[in-house]
């Protein structure tokens, strides 16, 4: 059953009670929370995802978002993220409950899923080939990702590139796309149809909101993709849209340094990473206009579609 088939009051009830079992990509979650904001965020953004009763089901990650103490419910209310009873983070203001769920889930995957090589990068796919977009914060990676998936590219992930160590294929985890500061408005203007949830202000990353993943990306979440490109986006005011080839060796080093678990995998991390690079075309990409950027990506995809 899909989450949107649950009535909002049922969802709230289950979240506050035994929890809701939810599948996102290769991972299953059990989420519990008594906070209306968490229920609201899930209703708005996870409608197309599969849910089940949490009772007697196997879940990969058991997470909870609740106020740290009763007192804190009234005085400067806060929210705590628990991973099966442990609190990996300090509590945040209640206003950030929903982004905290998303950050917490990223943490769950990157700290545990060592059957993948996990790189800190967005991934989108067209015609079976995936573009990996690694980039430091502030480079416009999420904006570009959102723009591409609103223009026919399939969302695999906006944060976590999961590379299957056995097959070298990229697995999808099409959770909501995180948008920060100006990019929230950029995307609203780019496509007024896109659903973006309420903005949480004054987080450690500034103002944060999440965009609902396209329906098609969620329906195809169990479909892996072959690595096609590694592209380093950089948004620059007034810049002309430009793709420049980049050295494979340098790109590999960057990916290794920006992987969450490269060193945990030992020699296998090197094997998986170099195999990926051998199959990918590597570019630097500068842009200022999102629509031009999308056209440039579409052209790339057409060139390799033959």
């Amino acid at each position, binding site marked *: 059953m899909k989450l949107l088939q649950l009535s909002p009051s049922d969802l709230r009830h289950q979240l506050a009670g035994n929890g809701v079992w939810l599948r996102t990509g290769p991972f299953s979650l059990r989420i519990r929370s008594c906070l209306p904001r968490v229920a609201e965020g899930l209703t708005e953004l996870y409608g197309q995802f599969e849910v089940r009763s949490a009772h007697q089901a*196997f879940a990969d990650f058991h997470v909870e978002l609740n106020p740290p103490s009763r007192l804190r419910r009234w005085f400067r209310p806060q929210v705590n993220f628990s991973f099966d*009873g442990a609190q990996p983070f300090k509590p945040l203001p209640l206003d950030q409950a929903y982004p905290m769920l998303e950050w917490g889930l990223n943490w769950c995957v990157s700290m*545990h899923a060592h059957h993948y090589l996990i790189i800190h990068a967005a991934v989108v796919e067209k015609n079976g080939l995936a573009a990996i977009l690694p980039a430091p914060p502030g480079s416009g990676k999420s904006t570009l990702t959102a723009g591409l998936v609103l223009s026919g590219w399939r969302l695999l992930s906006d944060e976590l590139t999961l590379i299957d160590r056995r097959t070298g294929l990229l697995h999808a985890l099409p959770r909501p796309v995180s948008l920060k500061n100006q990019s929230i408005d950029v995307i609203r203007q780019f496509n007024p149809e896109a659903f973006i949830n309420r903005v949480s202000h004054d987080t450690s990353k500034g103002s944060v909101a999440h965009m609902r993943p396209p329906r098609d990306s969620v329906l195809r979440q169990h479909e892996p993709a072959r690595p096609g490109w590694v592209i380093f986006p950089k948004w620059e005011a007034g810049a002309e849209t430009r793709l420049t080839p980049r050295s494979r060796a340098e790109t590999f080093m960057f990916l290794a340094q920006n992987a969450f678990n490269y060193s*945990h*995998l030992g020699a296998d991390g090197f094997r998986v990473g170099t195999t990926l690079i051998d199959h990918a075309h590597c570019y630097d990409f500068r842009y200022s206009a999102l629509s031009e950027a999308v056209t440039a990506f579409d052209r790339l995809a057409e060139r390799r579609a033959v």
Partner: protein
Amino acid sequence: MKSRSRDLLSCTLRSPDSVTRFSMGEWDLLVRQARSAGLLARVRHVLARHQLTEAIPAVARWHFDAAATLAAKQQLAVRWEVDKIRTALKGLAFPFILLKGSAYVMANLPAASGRLFNDIDILVPRAQLGAVEAALMLAGWHPTLLSDYDQRYYRRWMHEIPPLQHAVRATVIDVHHAILPDTARYHPDSATLRHRAVAVADMPGVQVLATEDRILHSATHVFHDGELPHGLRDLTDLDLLLRDAAANPDFWLRLTTRANELQLGRSLFYALRYLRYFLDTPIPDSAMAALERDKPNRLTLALMDRIFTRVLAPDHASCADRFTPAARLAAFVRAHWLRMPVHLLIPHLLHKAFVSPYQRNEKPA
């Protein structure tokens, strides 16, 4: 009577065959209990040894594999790190002794299987602490940030100096000069531990404790440590160490005799008692009989049973009952009680309760 779900992890370790009858809900709980006890990789190892890997449902398997990946990487890192410590201490005229996990790895013991690590513990002569610390600092390890109070506390009363952390690799070494604090009730003689230590093959200058001493140290550690986040993991270490050592026919006699020599009979008594309770470790009655003198009175034992059957279980909500928090507190107080006399203990606990939480420096784990 303990419910089956509360005991699921130790039940799995006692009789691995039981997993063939697990429901999905039980697999869910097993993964969670094993993760919180730091035993995911070890459970995988146990299941593999009993040809039960196929019994793990497909959805649960990656948890065990990922933990095994991490454990393998950590063992490699431990070997590398030990070699770095050896290089750093090469100029000193005495060997150093590896304790606990790193010793199990370097001595290739079954207790290394699927084990995860936080730090590397070494034992050196007390008179050489300064030289060792200086040599390690030259090689890149530096003291972790501690409050002045903690620094003083370590240096004056503890059996180790404050943890040293490597500036680049962030690995942590605990340098000990004894296996219990100076202030503790019992004082196992470090000189005789060093005297009986055995060399690690192909690693001149590196030693591990003799078999009985290694087991006694591990037992002492469990029953003198106030916080037991990995109580069950430490018990499974002991279980593996004992099963391995028991291949030697006079092992149990040697172990109990040595426990008496080192004043560690009581710790060994408790360790064996709770090993039988949690893991069905095959311990001959003769060994328990040899420790009769170290057995506490009936009242104390009844209390200790209530405490340790709770605190040695995984620190996971599904393993707790309503007395678990009280049992954890009792174990904490008991450990401190054993580690220092009252006139030191009271001010120390007051400081920890009312001053430390308001200082900026964090105590390392």
